[in-house]
């Protein structure tokens, strides 16, 4: 089918072409998935290096290493690269690899667009990174780029930042359209919607979120651009605009965005836990409904990021109630995972360890999220390290952990090689200890009154910052170790069986060889 949509009669079934051009011109979902995953790994290490600069500067009070303006561009770039460069492309990569295999399709629905949506990204990130070397420095207004700091008071390089965001947006929208088209049109006969694996379900919901909100982000940066250069005043109070409106537009994108980064993770965890508990997922349909209701709620809570901006009481009350409501469907998910484990027959291979780590630490992040949602108390938490701790628990031990778990879980299917189990376990324990040393003390820092995004701090915050930095360096190193594991697994290793895991279910394990053939399911599989 891929061949039918690309080169009529050209037999690709023998395997991929060789050389660099294979990767540039590829329309194969597995190749593109690999490209996405490598890009996101490179971005993870790049953004991680920036985090190391941040933690090194904050290791002790006083300005030692970098200038405040450069520090601000580090926090800005770290956030942008991790969100748009590491987490999102990793999920798109996993979607590319897994969705066709999971629904019994030969490839993605729109393979050439697939190629495009990947190849835009390296250019977008090169452009974004190049701003650091421009006169006046890179963007230094935080990844949330609040106006007017990002408009009237921003460095010239901001225009490149705006264009880079446009490109990332186009890439994400194309990727999302592809996912929706694939899921809705290419399922094997018998693969009804309610038979789809949860990863496919959560990605379908995510893809709808993406096409709904990425254009709003594009609108926001376009308004910034016209404010900067074409005399409009969308966000400029002097011309009758409103800087607070920027925040409303941004968070209208930004809050669904955080669910874009966590919903596929829910899907991954819902695949891994049943496998290693050797027991079907508890409450499949309620998981689907919970994901959908989280997605819908995510459009109605954006202003909880703005409790201190000066809203009317009625607004604050509404956003507080709506926000804490999200913990209900999220709680349902946690309870379902725990119940799936209950009275199972569990083993604890690396993917399962990362999945359990996810459930525990994502829950901790959820608790701090609930606390942050209580508007009057947010007066004290807002823009402190408590918030930093919260979203890193959700995004690092949440989203990133799920991606790592997915790697260990599916890599035998991708490469035909088992990873080294001992190294995998070391990676898990090393990361988990380090990440808690890194982020848990940040709760205390925030409660004690340390604001975020500061290059230097008052001496009473010294101890926890030092602990946090040490954890940070250890966590950073653990991911370099992960790179070693990844390369080692690709190069060789114990031969994986077709089913890979004793308790594995799903088309990709039950009906495909390991490694999966270059074109899977040229004939539609039979669904039981």
């Amino acid at each position, binding site marked *: 089918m891929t061949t039918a949509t690309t080169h009529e009669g050209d037999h690709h079934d023998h395997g991929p072409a060789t050389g660099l051009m294979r990767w540039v011109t590829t329309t194969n979902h597995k190749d593109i998935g690999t490209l996405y995953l490598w890009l996101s790994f490179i971005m993870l290490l790049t953004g991680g290096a920036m985090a190391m600069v941040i933690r090194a500067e904050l290791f002790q009070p006083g300005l030692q290493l970098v200038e405040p303006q450069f520090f601000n561009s580090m926090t800005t770039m770290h956030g942008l690269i991790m969100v748009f460069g590491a987490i999102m492309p990793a999920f798109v990569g996993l979607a590319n690899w897994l969705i066709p295999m999971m629904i019994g399709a030969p490839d993605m629905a729109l393979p050439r667009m697939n190629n495009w949506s990947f190849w835009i990204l390296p250019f977008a990130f090169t452009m974004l990174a190049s701003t650091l070397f421009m006169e006046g420095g890179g963007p230094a*207004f935080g990844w949330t780029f609040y106006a007017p700091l990002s408009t009237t008071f921003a460095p010239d390089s901001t225009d490149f930042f705006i264009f880079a965001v446009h490109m990332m947006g186009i890439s994400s929208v194309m990727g999302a359209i592809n996912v929706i088209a694939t899921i809705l049109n290419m399922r094997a006969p018998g693969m009804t919607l309610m038979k789809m694996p949860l990863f496919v379900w959560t990605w379908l919901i995510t893809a709808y979120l993406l096409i709904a909100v990425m254009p709003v982000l594009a609108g926001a940066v376009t308004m910034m651009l016209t404010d900067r250069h074409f005399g409009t005043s969308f966000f400029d109070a002097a011309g009758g605009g409103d800087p607070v409106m920027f925040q409303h537009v941004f968070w209208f994108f930004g809050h669904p965005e955080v669910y874009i980064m966590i919903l596929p993770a829910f899907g991954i965890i819902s695949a891994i836990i049943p496998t290693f508990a050797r027991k079907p997922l508890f409450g499949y349909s309620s998981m689907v409904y919970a994901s959908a209701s989280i997605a819908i709620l995510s459009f109605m809570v954006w202003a909880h990021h703005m409790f*201190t901006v000066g809203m009317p009481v009625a607004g604050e009350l509404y956003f507080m109630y709506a926000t804490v409501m999200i913990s209900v469907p999220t709680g349902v998910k946690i309870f379902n995972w725990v119940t799936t484990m209950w009275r199972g027959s569990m083993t604890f291979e690396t993917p399962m360890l990362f999945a359990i780590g996810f459930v525990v630490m994502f829950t901790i992040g959820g*608790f701090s999220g609930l606390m942050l949602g209580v508007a009057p108390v947010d007066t004290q938490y807002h823009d402190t390290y408590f918030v930093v701790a919260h979203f890193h628990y959700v995004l690092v031990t949440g989203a990133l952990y799920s991606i790592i778990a997915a790697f260990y879980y599916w890599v035998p299917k991708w490469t035909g090689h088992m990873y080294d189990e001992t190294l995998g376990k070391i990676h898990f324990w090393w990361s988990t200890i380090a990440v808690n*040393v890194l982020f848990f003390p940040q709760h205390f820092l925030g409660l004690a009154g340390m604001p975020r995004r500061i290059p230097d701090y*008052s001496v009473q915050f010294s101890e926890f910052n030092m602990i946090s930095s040490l954890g940070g360096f250890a966590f950073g190193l653990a991911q370099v170790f992960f790179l070693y594991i990844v390369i080692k697994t690709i190069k060789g290793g114990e031969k994986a069986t077709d089913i890979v895991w004793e308790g594995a279910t799903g088309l990709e394990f039950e009906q495909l060889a390991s490694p999966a053939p270059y074109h899977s399911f040229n004939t539609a599989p039979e669904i039981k």
Partner: protein
Amino acid sequence: MVFKRLSRRLFAPVTAMLSIFFSSFAHAEYVLNMTKGVSTISNDIYDLHMLVMWICFVVGIIVFSVMAYSIMTHRKSKGAVASNFHESTTVEIIWTLVPLAILIAIAVPATATLLDLEDSSKSDVSIQVTGIQWKWRYKYLGEDVEFISSLSEENRDAVSASSPNSVEHYLRDVDKRIVVPVNKKIEFLFTSDDVIHAWWVPELAVKQDTVPGFINTSWAYIEKPGIYRGQCAELCGKDHGFMPIVVEAVTMPEYQKWLVAMRGEQAALAASSDKEWTQAELMAKGESVYKATCAACHGATGAGIPPVFPALAKSPVATGDVKGHINIVMNGKTGTAMQAFKTQLSDVDLAAVITFERNSFGNTVGDLVQPSTIKSLR
């Protein structure tokens, strides 16, 4: 055996966390929890914070215990056989409704506190707080007292020398404190001259964004005299981390005395601008004003950080027509970080710093600006 070792391994991070948590109680320096604060509202917020935190603790312990028990017993190595249940509508309804009930229990006190927090009417003292890159302007409404407060000079030196321990309140001390009376309702009116800042003093539980062109309000009723420190909480550019707030709460008579003293100081300052100043006097004064006010952007040597912060050395403004120079320093430049310093500096300071800029960093214009000239342009 295997199971024991594993469970110990599983709990290693948790034990590590707890031991750090508890050992820290031994040290008075670091703070683990939110401050109770000294205002009525900060106490309510603290109670609410503790309530929600304990609920999270309890729910967390229940969920994690069930999970830990399951991990320890329902494992293949112990011969556990997987059962096959995977649905129960009753259970699902229960764990939708129970959290909902807990949320309502949180929402009731939260609503009450929020309504209280947002009601700043019937205040006894009104202070307008204006955020400026990277300092605060305070204006006591109806009291004719207005001043700028920024990072203290010792602190500035400590920052440039990178010696945080050389001063007592590193990054938390200002040149002029804001003084308020205790047991009075103090209303704060927030706005900004440039970007969005946020005025935050944890002990008062006041954190409010300052938005250019808009006015926001918050209030505090302080019950205990003392000195309370905070800082800017919204990223506002380069020196966001160097914009502290110090509030001194005193008794009413002391507050009245302070107001009188401030008015006297302002009057003396106004009077000094009628005097003729010599070049040497202006240059000396100008250098200290430059260091405190201008050096953050234009650099200690006047080199600036082009193109965002232009150099002053050999600049067309600092070596050109004096009128243009005075205008830009007094009124600022729209759409840039160059502020209107007439609202921040006295006539003497302005005259001195302009004179200094015209005759330093290799600039040799030679003219001097008298404070009286500045006064006439106000």
